[in-house]
């Protein structure tokens, strides 16, 4: 381990030295002969195709996207393959999974020099090992139509969800099998500390429901957004209301019918890193720089429904209007999540379902 640590340290300093030598001159200029970089990512990875072809035309680097399940599966596969990776770059490790990846030495530390343009609140969260690319919020989504029809005020805080008048209205996901479900559980832990289990007992007493996946919760149980379910409160993303407009049958005429609850949102930051043992580390760095470039950053909202990490990138109007960023999102440190996740999951199961 000590030898590995030393090697990592060396890589960092060498990396920094290299960056120091050519501050913003993209490494892409140094990679000329055609190479294919394998980008390991999760199933939700989407980008405009034109960006990829343009990148190849400019740099000679072809990006082969390899998607391996959800973010959890992605990181686990990388952990198992640590040192003999399936690709060169990994995109999609988030702040709850980062410590697992880092402690397994999945990454060769590299932070893009472009990080100087990243919003300050998340710029250094990659701990000098990975580069933040985007973030998003897991929030309770509200079916406004349901509440308007009945003249009931929608809940405003996590506490409200335990009130009798919202009994039987809330659906979330099993944190053991669903990424938003896990994020929501972490939000309650961040907010209530040791009292989080009591909170879940109250949710349970208030007839809250947990199903296994986001799709079942949102398309089957949620009443909003044209779905047939019966529960007007669901755990989803803060970008779901604009997605409902953008993916409406007729976006021009669509009106927004869902909104998010500002309290109890969990911030998910997604990172990209160079995999230790990558065959093309230089090209991999160029890909990470490119992921933070203004072109890719301004594509993220409409392709992956996340928020660009880069400061000053204009958001599509639907986002600006219908996806307010929570003022005080809940967060836990990667180390804390890494150390306690399994224990918390067991406690959640004991408290909420068994």
């Amino acid at each position: 381990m000590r030898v590995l640590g030393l090697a990592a340290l060396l890589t960092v300093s060498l990396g920094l030295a290299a960056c120091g030598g050519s501050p913003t001159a993209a490494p892409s200029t140094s990679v000329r002969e055609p190479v294919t970089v394998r980008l390991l990512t999760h199933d939700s990875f989407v980008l405009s195709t034109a960006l990829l072809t343009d990148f190849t035309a400019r740099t000679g680097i072809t990006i082969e996207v390899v998607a391996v399940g959800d973010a959890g599966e992605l990181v686990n596969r990388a952990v198992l393959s640590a040192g003999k990776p399936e690709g060169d770059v990994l995109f999609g490790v988030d702040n709850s999974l980062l410590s697992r990846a880092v402690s397994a030495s999945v990454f060769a530390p590299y932070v893009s020099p472009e990080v100087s343009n990243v919003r300050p609140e998340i710029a250094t969260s990659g701990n000098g090992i990975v580069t933040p690319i985007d973030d998003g919020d897991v929030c309770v989504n509200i079916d406004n139509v349901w509440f308007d029809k009945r003249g009931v005020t929608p809940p405003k805080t996590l506490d409200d969800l335990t009130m009798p008048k919202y009994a039987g209205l809330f659906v979330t996901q099993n944190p053991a099998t669903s990424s938003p479900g896990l994020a929501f559980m972490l939000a309650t832990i961040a907010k209530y500390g040791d009292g989080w289990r009591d909170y879940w007992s109250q949710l349970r007493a208030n007839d809250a429901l947990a199903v296994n996946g986001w799709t079942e919760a949102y398309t089957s149980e949620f009443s909003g957004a044209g779905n047939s379910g019966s529960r007007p409160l669901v755990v989803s993303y803060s970008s779901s209301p604009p997605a409902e407009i953008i993916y409406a049958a007729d976006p021009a005429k669509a009106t927004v019918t869902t909104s998010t609850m500002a309290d109890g949102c969990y911030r998910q930051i997604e990172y990209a890193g160079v995999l230790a043992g990558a065959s093309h580390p230089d090209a991999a760095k160029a890909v990470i720089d490119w992921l933070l470039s203004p072109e890719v950053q301004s594509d993220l909202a409409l392709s992956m429904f996340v928020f660009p990490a880069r400061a000053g990138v204009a958001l599509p109007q639907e986002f600006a209007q219908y996806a307010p960023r929570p003022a005080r999102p809940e967060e836990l440190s990667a180390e804390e999540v890494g150390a306690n996740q399994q224990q918390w999951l067991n406690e959640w199961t004991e408290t909420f379902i068994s």
Partner: protein
Amino acid sequence: MIRSRGLAIAPVGVVALFLLIPVVAVLIAGIRPESLEILLESRTWRVVGFTTLQALLSTVVSVALALPATYALHRLRLRMRRLTLAVLTVPFVLPTVVVGLAFRALLPESLNGTLTAIILAHAFFNVGLVIRVVGGVWSRLDGRMQDAARTLGLSSFNVFRRVTLPYLRPAILASTALVAMFTFTSFGVIMVLGSPAQPTIEVEIYRRTTQILDISAAAGLALLQLVVVVVALIWSAALQRRTVMRMRQSSTPALPAISAVDRLCVYWTYLLALALALPVLALTLRSFRAGNQWSLQWYQQIAAPSGGTTRDIGAFSIVTTSLRYAVLATILAVVLGVLGAMAVQLATRRGVTLEATLLLPLGVSAVTIGFGLLLVSIRGPVDLRGWTFLVPLGQALVAAPLVMMLLLPILRSIDPRLRYVAATLGSPPLKAWWAVDGRLIGRATVGAAGLACAVSLGEFGATAFLARVDEPTIPLQIVRLLGRPGEANFGSATALAVVLLAITAVVLITTERGRTQW
């Protein structure tokens, strides 16, 4: 003489390479003293108990619902027979996530997450399989025996119990074994319809492998699952062997339904087909609704997606990819399945072990296999990652045991004296084989190939693990679309599901026509 050992090489080799080695790799990597601890936890045994209970109940219900319909579809004259059979088979071959959501939408809310919902869904998915496996034998049962028994004064019930049933028993056992494997390792149905409070062994393996990376516990559970499955398979194979009855082959024409029981069976068949069609119909109707109006919008959208992102892949190219994989998988599955069935039938001493081995792909956790392939690639001599041939191979691993189980009961029912006669009359071995076995299983192979092709088209688990992002199959693209909010995503997913449904129905109906007109 054609020897069992020679025939078994290919199918056993494939199972060994792509199933046993990965599973052993997982066990080597994961089994620690702690793995045995998980086997002592009471929670684990609750999971095992629930998994077994739901599998047993689901299997019994599936077989019981299917038998009257099998009779009507294969012995009686039935209007729209091929269509009805296709309708009854479609749920089995469509991806569970897709039909599971449609099923969930129709289920009364009080049933969501209950054992009843799981059993109903499993029956819904597996009835068609039972009908196919048992029907293959039932359709060729010589009707004159029943006539004779009836003339001798046996009641209809006793004719069935004492004359018909003994001949059907191996086929019923074969279908029972298949359904039990599918439901014991069920994943999609449990995820979509089950409650987080009651996971199955497969869900626990998935959770521990892919979410919390507790490899030693996952390996312990995988071992447990393997042991249960192997014991069950060996027991079922031995039982099938013991109950084999040679029968006179005939093509008794379908009879009109005259008796009350016959008519009841016919009504039952239509009713069952209707019940199975409902979720699929609801899905189809939904695909023509956009913004509360009737519309072809989602079909236009999947044909030429306009977003310009890596996910906007035209339906034509997705269908082409799916068909390319499915054709390869079907060829592989038929070759392996036919060889396997012949080898098991010819084997004298090791038949039971051989049959159980070849059925293992249905009973071993897909998560474990995928994870094992990954371990083999990382630590072994051959790196299989990114090898696209794995996609049809993975699909064939699932489809080949089905082909085998469709053919095996038929091969077993052939009177061995026919083979001796052919050999005595001086036919060279291959020709003798063709004259007796080949011709008879030829028909069934066409049907089996249809089912294999449909299964490959709808396969999700192995495909999702192995396919390339820019070349998704139809089920993969559907599940990706379902993972996002917005009506356009949901609508496009339903439209693609209907495309898959149409292709599957065409495959099933044409192969059934080929089978009956052979």
